[in-house]
């Protein structure tokens, strides 16, 4: 009898402790922990570095505090989908983060999103352009800042059509590349183009000489590409080496400045879609400030990935402030209401798929590159008005996202 009473007492005591612990964490005045998942090594390392610098800059500009509490950032690697997914789980279980900003590769993003949905922790993706992320795989806890592949391709196509009729595709062999093929093929007929060849290249391919020989043989008028990071840099270099730079124009989406800075002015050419460019005369005053801060700190201008990391973190911090809470559901609701009016066209996360609705910028490599960093001329945005922008991002039926209840 005595043992059962004491056992009951022990259980009651343990329950009391658990409740007390829960209550203590609910009104925690400790640091607000946020996780970052960006590449630290591999072909995406330069991208990851600039993303992290952007997110870090946003934290600094917020005085390293949110809701009056200090911000604690933990940065884990994004080497491949499995490890990225594990790292996200680690951030949630061990570091007890309130949200995660990260994911540059669509493959890692898709893996991390499932963790976000299961653990109910908000995830903001600054990269990852594959449509299914805010399409058929969408979930209530995931948000994305980069324009989708279809939006970027629609912006690029008119310029591709100017260059000729015969198109050769050189895309990476994973979700992002497959999305480029799908979207482009649908658009080819509209602009009167013909596909003369396609090569889906495995990620981390260092040597493209054999692919270049194939392309040369097919004699296309223009190449539509989607190689990423270090792979793209390798290709550009070898493309130039084999005398092809000035022979066949190259067009691609979702590229970033470091892809070109890594190979130098000699090998850079083509027409591209990217989220942002530091030397765009239409940048807002807040952005110009950010550029100046970055320049002072790192002695070079920020790449578009910096902007992406910066805006994703800003959206998160501003939403936490707006929600006056670090509760996941409150953050999600605040992100759905978040709006930025600093640029010409206001941008926001669409509430029914969490896609950021904002035009991308169309750029062309300068004929003469004289500055160490300034490689591009900005042509224009992929859409010019708010109405046009919302239209290019597609309607519910096209996107195919059914988002769950919170």
């Amino acid at each position, binding site marked *: 009898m005595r043992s059962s009473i004491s056992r009951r007492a022990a259980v009651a005591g343990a329950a009391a402790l658990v409740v007390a612990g829960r209550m203590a964490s609910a009104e925690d005045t400790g640091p607000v922990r946020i996780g970052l998942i960006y590449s630290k*090594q591999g072909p995406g*390392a330069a991208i990851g570095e600039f993303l992290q610098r952007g997110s870090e800059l946003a934290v600094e500009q917020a005085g390293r505090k949110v809701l009056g509490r200090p911000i604690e950032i933990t940065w884990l690697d994004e080497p491949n989908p499995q490890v990225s997914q594990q790292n996200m789980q680690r951030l949630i279980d061990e570091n007890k983060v309130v949200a995660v900003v990260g994911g540059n590769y669509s493959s890692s993003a898709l893996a991390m999103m499932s963790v976000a949905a299961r653990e109910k922790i908000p995830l903001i993706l600054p990269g990852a352009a594959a449509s299914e992320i805010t399409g058929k795989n969408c979930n209530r806890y995931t948000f994305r800042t980069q324009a989708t592949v279809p939006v970027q391709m629609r912006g690029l196509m008119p310029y591709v059509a100017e260059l000729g009729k015969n198109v050769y595709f050189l895309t990476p062999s994973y979700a992002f590349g497959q999305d480029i093929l799908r979207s482009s093929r649908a658009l080819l007929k509209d602009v009167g183009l013909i596909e003369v060849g396609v090569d*889906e290249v*495995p990620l981390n391919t260092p040597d493209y000489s054999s692919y270049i020989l194939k392309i040369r043989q097919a004699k296309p008028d223009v190449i539509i590409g989607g190689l990423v990071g270090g792979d793209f840099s*390798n290709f550009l*270099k070898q493309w130039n080496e*084999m005398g092809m730079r000035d022979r066949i124009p190259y067009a691609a989406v979702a590229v970033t400045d470091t892809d070109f800075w*890594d190979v130098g002015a000699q090998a850079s050419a083509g027409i591209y879609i990217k989220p942002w460019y530091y030397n765009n005369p239409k940048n807002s005053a807040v952005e110009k400030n950010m550029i100046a801060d970055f320049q002072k700190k790192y002695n070079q201008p920020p790449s578009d990935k910096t902007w992406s990391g910066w805006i994703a973190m800003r959206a998160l911090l501003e939403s936490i402030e707006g929600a006056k809470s670090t509760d996941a559901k409150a953050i999600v609701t605040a992100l759905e209401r978040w709006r930025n009016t600093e640029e010409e066209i206001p941008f926001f996360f669409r509430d029914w798929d969490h896609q950021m609705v904002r035009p991308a910028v169309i750029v062309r490599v300068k004929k003469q590159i004289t500055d160490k960093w300034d490689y591009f001329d900005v042509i224009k945005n992929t859409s010019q008005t708010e109405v046009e922008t919302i239209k290019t991002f597609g309607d519910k039926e096209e996107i195919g996202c059914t988002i769950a209840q919170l």
Partner: protein
Amino acid sequence: MLDILVSQIANGLVLGVIYVLIAVGLSITFGLLGVINFAHGAFFALGAYVGWQMFQLFGWPAVILAPPVVGLIGMAVEMILIRRLYGKEPLLSLIVTFALALLIEATIRYIWGAEGKPFNPPPLLAGIVEIGPLLITKYRVGVLVATTATLLGLWAFLAWTPYGRILRAGSRDPEMVELLGINLPRVLTAVFGLGCALAAVAGVLAAPLWTVSPSMAAGAVMPAFVVVAIGGLGSFRGAVVAGLAVGVVTSLTIQFKPDAAAASMYALMFAILLLRPRGLFGERWERFE
């Protein structure tokens, strides 16, 4: 069709020749030291970076200093770390050298940053060569020439010089070599340095082709292991034949089925090892069996 095949095969041979150079150093290290050097790719990357740095400081001719510099670094690493692995089980050398590889890559990132370094072929070798159906860049022809010269030099060194004989004898029967009064530890240090210097030569030659970035080691170390497995551990001849085979198979796969290109060398390895488990020219090493 014949045109493109000829070009692809020629291209594959050039690619293969780079793989041969990377693999030969690995094969020598294993054959003569019994150590599986997973950090071989990291020395390849180090060679590229030191070469780039020499170019930045002193111009093109100074690039030739990179392999000896990396060789010296390799000798230091051998004296501090690698010699503790001799005679121990192979798994230990794999784990230690894997950790070394990560350390070297992180050091490279720390010193030079994570971004790539623009590095282009020298102006002398810019441009392409077109002979009928064959298209090849001048720089790749230069790589072919340089690699062939390096491999011939290495082979001559091993086959004809007294030092080469000592190296080969030391791998067969280290006790006897020591009994003959030869300072074996110094020989082994030199061998490891040689392996690293060869990796660095490959790194310097590959630097204008592939982006000079901390992750370039990954693009080198896996093909190196595959080539050594196919050719036979410790076999110079095997590394040459296997390297060229891997290069040509990869190029032809890209021509006909590009998404299988990355896997093609592993398929080749699988096929060869099924027929000849020790590789094409793998020899019996009493020490390891």
